[in-house]
């Protein structure tokens, strides 16, 4: 066993001995599992004429969360996910904004919770966008409710050729919620 492996082993042993962690409740929500098979994991992009831009919203989706956390305080909420874009023709750029709300009607009325990186659209694709980061504290409180609504807004900017047959399909979307309450 070399020094690095020995160090890792000792660190792991110490971690177990000290009962690693802060004693918080962590809720990992597989948001994608609520979208899969409903059609809401896909944004169909209409034809975007050359050099023009547009936005497309998907139908908001409700996600059930563990009940009983309404008096809890959320420490952080982080989001990770990926969307794959395919198209028939055209090129340009695209990014996605993720919205959260307490009800369906106001899903898109606030500021986006997080934005993906901007991807360059190539003819045919597939082109993959990534969502990664912490949500703002204003949005964190939504995750103490028993249900949260999520919406995806795609921003598409066509290049010198029109984009046709575009589709963005979510392949993964996970929320990592750290509750501030201590249990152990």
């Amino acid at each position, binding site marked *: 066993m070399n020094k690095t492996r020995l160090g890792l082993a000792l660190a792991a042993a110490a971690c177990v001995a000290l009962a690693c962690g802060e004693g918080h*409740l962590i809720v990992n929500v597989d948001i994608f599992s609520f979208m899969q098979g409903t059609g809401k994991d896909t944004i169909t992009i209409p034809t975007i004429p050359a050099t023009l831009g547009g936005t497309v919203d998907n139908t908001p989706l409700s996600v059930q969360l563990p009940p009983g956390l309404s008096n809890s305080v959320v420490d952080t909420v982080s989001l990770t996910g990926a969307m794959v874009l395919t198209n028939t023709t055209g090129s340009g750029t695209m990014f996605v904004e993720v919205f959260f709300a307490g009800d369906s009607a106001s899903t898109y009325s606030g500021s986006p919770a997080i934005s993906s990186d901007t991807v360059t659209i190539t003819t045919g694709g597939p082109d993959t966008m990534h969502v990664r980061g912490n949500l703002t504290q204003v949005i964190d409180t939504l995750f103490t409710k028993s249900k949260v609504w999520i919406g995806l807004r795609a921003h598409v900017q066509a290049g010198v050729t029109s984009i046709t047959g575009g589709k963005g399909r979510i392949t993964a979307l996970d929320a990592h919620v750290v509750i501030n309450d201590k249990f152990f």
Partner: protein
Amino acid sequence: MRFRASAIGLAVLTAAAAVPARAQFSFDARRIGMAGVSLHRDGDLQRYNAAYRAAPKGKNDQGGLTIPIPLGIIQALKDSNITFNTKDSNFNAIAIANLILNPPIFYQIKKPPTPTNDIAIGVGKDSLQIDLGLAKTLIPQDRFAFGGSSRLMDIGFGIKGLRLSVFAFIEEDIGADLSDSLRAFLRAGNQAHDTTSYDLLPSGRAQAGFAPSLGWAGKIAGPDPDHGLYLGGNVHRYFGVAYAQGGGVAGIRTGSPIFGNTVSVTPEGALLYRFTNHPGKKFGTGMGGDVGLVVIQGPIEFGLGVNDIGATLTWPQTEIDSVAYDPVTNKFVKTVLDSNAQSKSKLPTSYIGNVTYHTGDITFGANILNSGRGTTVHVGAEKRVGPFAVRGGVARDRRKQIQFGWGGGVRLGFLGLDVGFATTSQNLSSERGIVMATSLTIY
């Protein structure tokens, strides 16, 4: 209605570990130092062996008054960072439960470990999983319960071995088990399945009353005042004042999928219980008895006592109710099945066996005690050298875990100072801690 998860967890975990909390409790450092063995002919021996009332005082019964020195309280006041605020960074449900299970009388040399790991819950449309981390070892592997059979007060008078008395009794056995699916979900961290039940299986019995008693204890034979064969027996007429007994299933059932547009988890449960709906108005009645035997022959002393033999109480007026979840109204509905039913209950038979052997300055002692819920075994010894005493012992507690005790003392005239150390598993982790007891004895 909403429950704080931490409060529920605390209650469940405390109950889970409460089994040993009712074990014989003594503040006497001499007894702690021998892992629970008492070399005195009082305490448990008098309580559980009817013949000891006739036995003479032994040479270890000279102590008049034992006063515990509660160093643990000072330690607790100094070290305590207990908080009930779950938002406080010091909050720890296990630490609170351990404090309840280990009242800070004894100084804790080695405190039981307190897990501080995160709890992770994984939620998907059709998946639910909980990772309790190291805390999963706290999930009991079999039924957890607390209770016992106790006699509170025993007031009476005696003439020539006969004794007329009355004592109050209380017996309870309250606990719960987890269904296999719930245990696997919490302890093994298995994924929850759809259309599956996750249940708690509560069951319990509690009864209390008083019992006039007629007893006799006397010396049958023996060569001198300090040795002989002693027998004792008591006949009790039990009058039960209050009684309740019941059990059933309570839990949740997942739907398909587990999390759809609405949470598909629904409560479920059915409980059946009976109780005295007019406690004290119509007494439960029954007969029972105790027998005891003590032999003191040379350096050997042997005793055996059995209590509450045949103690079955008939309760003339009890109510039988059921509570079941009604999926139509989404409520638990109570139904009175019979408001004037006769019920029967039993008091558990308790027993004690003990042996003591004196050789030179060394006294060996051992006992086995079942006070109605689980058996404890203690073996210990004391060696006296002038004013000094050295003690040691080993015990098997109600959790069937081996515990150790050791200690010593010094006697100066009428005053004795003793210190005893003992391992204990009276905590949620089941890992041993070490406590130190100190006491003064005025001889």
